[in-house]
C-alpha cells in the first residue's frame, strides 16, 4: 500500500506532461498500487487567482475518496483568508493546503504567510510548502523561478516551531542540511536522490519524517515507487515512508 503526497491534476505549461483529470489520475495511480493520494491542481500555480483551479479540484475529487484535495493558496493575494474560508466550506474535512513560494509572489517570512500559518494551525489543517515542482535547472529557459533556499526554509521553521510543515521537493542535500540545522518538518522523497539515499536517511533515523511522493505527472510514477521498493531498509521503515507517516500526519481516515 502506498499513500502519495505529491500528485497533481491539470496541465503544466512546459513540457509534454499528461494533463489528467481526477478520474484519470485515480486510475493511473491505482494501476501503480497507490491507494490514496494528496492531489492539487496545477492550474493554481500560474493563474493570477488560484481558486478556479481549486474549485475544479474539489468538484472532481468530491466522489473519489482515494484522492484527497489539497488546494494551492497564494498568500500574496489580499483575499487569501477568504480563499481559505471557501476551501474549508468546499471541503469541510480539509487536510492540507499547499503554497508555492517562488511561483507566487511572496516570501516565507512575510506577515501574510505568518497569518496563514496561524489560521491553518487554528483549523488543524496541515501546510505543504512546495520547494519546487520541477528541476529548476531544466525549467523553461525564460522562467526565472528560484526555489525557497535552505536558509529561508530554516528561518521559516524556526519562526513557526509548532507548525511542522511538509516540505515538498527537497533534494537530498537540502534535506540533510535542514535535518542538521534542526526544526520540525516532514518531507517527501521525489527529489531525494543519490545512490542509497533512502537507506542512508533511514540509517540516520529519518524514516519518521519521510513520506512517499510520486510527483505525478512530472515524473514517471514507477520511478519513485522503485526507489522506495528497492531500498534496503526494514519493512517497518518502508511502511512508514510508504503510507503510515502520511496517514498519521494528515489524519487520513481508513488508512
Amino acid at each position, binding site marked *: 500500500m502506498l499513500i502519495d503526497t505529491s500528485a497533481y491534476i491539470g496541465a503544466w505549461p512546459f513540457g509534454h506532461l499528461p494533463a489528467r483529470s481526477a478520474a484519470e489520475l485515480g486510475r493511473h495511480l491505482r494501476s501503480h498500487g497507490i491507494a490514496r493520494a494528496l492531489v492539487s491542481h496545477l492550474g493554481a500555480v500560474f493563474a493570477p487567482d488560484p481558486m478556479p483551479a481549486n474549485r475544479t479540484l474539489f468538484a472532481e475529487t468530491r466522489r473519489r475518496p482515494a484522492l484527497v484535495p489539497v488546494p494551492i493558496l497564494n498568500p500574496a493575494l489580499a483575499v487569501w483568508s477568504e480563499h481559505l474560508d471557501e476551501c474549508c466550506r468546499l471541503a469541510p474535512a480539509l487536510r492540507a493546503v499547499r503554497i508555492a513560494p517562488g511561483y507566487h509572489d511572496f516570501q516565507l517570512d512575510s506577515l501574510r504567510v505568518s497569518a496563514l500559518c496561524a489560521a491553518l494551525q487554528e483549523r488543524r489543517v496541515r501546510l505543504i510548502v512546495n520547494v519546487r515542482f520541477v528541476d529548476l535547472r531544466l525549467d523553461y529557459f525564460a522562467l526565472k523561478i528560484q526555489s525557497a533556499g535552505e536558509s529561508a526554509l530554516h528561518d521559516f521553521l524556526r519562526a513557526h516551531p509548532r507548525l511542522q510543515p511538509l516540505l515538498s521537493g527537497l533534494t537530498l542535500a537540502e534535506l540533510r542540511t535542514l535535518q542538521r540545522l534542526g526544526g520540525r518538518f516532514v518531507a517527501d522523497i521525489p527529489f531525494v*536522490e543519490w545512490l542509497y*539515499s533512502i537507506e542512508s536517511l533511514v540509517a540516520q533515523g529519518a524514516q519518521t519524517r519521510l513520506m512517499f511522493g510520486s510527483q505525478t505527472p512530472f515524473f*514517471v*510514477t514507477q520511478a519513485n515507487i*522503485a*526507489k522506495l521498493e*528497492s531500498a534496503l531498509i526494514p519493512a517497518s521503515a518502508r511502511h512508514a515512508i510508504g503510507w503510515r507517516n502520511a496517514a498519521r500526519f494528515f489524519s487520513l481516515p481508513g488508512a
Partner: protein
Amino acid sequence: MRVIDLHTHPIFLRAGRRRADVDRLVAESRARGVVRMVVLGDVLVHGRTPDAGQIARINDETARVVRMHPDFFLGFCYLNPLLGARAVEREVERCVAGYDFRGLKLELANNALHPSMTPVMRLAARLSLPVLQHTWRTRPGPERRQQSDPEDTVALARRFPGVQVIMAHLTACGYRGVLEAKGVDNLVIDTSAAFPEAEILEYAVAQLGAERVVYGSDLPIREPAVTLGRVLGSRLTAAERRLILHDNAQRLLRLSPPC
C-alpha cells in the same frame, strides 16, 4: 531483463573506492539485471580541467575498478582535450592498449566545438572508439565555453560522421536536444542524469527511434532503481525497452551476444 548501463561513476569525488563498495554495487546491479556497466571515471574530482597527471590517475582508478570485476565493468578513457593532441594520444593509447578501455569520455573541460576536439575525434575514428560527451542545455554565455549544449554535441557528430557519439543526459538535453539529434545517425542519446521526467523518453523514441537511445544511470548521482524505473515505467513496447536497456549498447560497444 538484461541491462547495460552505459553511464556510471562508481567512484565519485573519491567515494566508493573501497573493494567492499564496488562488490556491493556489482551484486546489487546484477540483481537488477545489469550485466555490464561502463565506468567513466571520477571526472570531477580535480575540477573541470585536470592536468595530465590527474587524468592518468583517474583512468588508473577506472582500470582498478574494471580489474575487480572484468566480466562486469568496461572502462572509458577520460580526457581533457585542452592538454593537446600529443597528451591526448598518449593517454588514449596507454588506456586502450594497457587497460582495454572501450571508449572516450569528455566532460566539462571545453565545448564540443572547440578546436582541441579535432585530434580527439580523429583518434576515436582511427581506433573505432565511441565518444561520450557530457551535454546539458546551455544558453550562450561563459558557461557554454566549457559545457556543451545539444546543438554543439550534435554539430560535433555531424563533423565526424565516422565516430559514434553518445550525447549524455536525455532530460537535460530536453525536447530541443532530441530534435537537434534528428537525422544524425552516428549519435545516440543516453538516459542518464536529472530526475525521471515523464514523457521525454517516449518523445525521444518517437522522434529518433528506439535504436538511438541508450540506458545510462549516472550513478551514484542518480538511483539506479529510479533510472531503470523511468524506462520500465514508460509507455514503450517491450522491444523498444530491450533496445534501450541492452541491445543498442551491446552493438555500440561491440560486445558479443550474449554479453
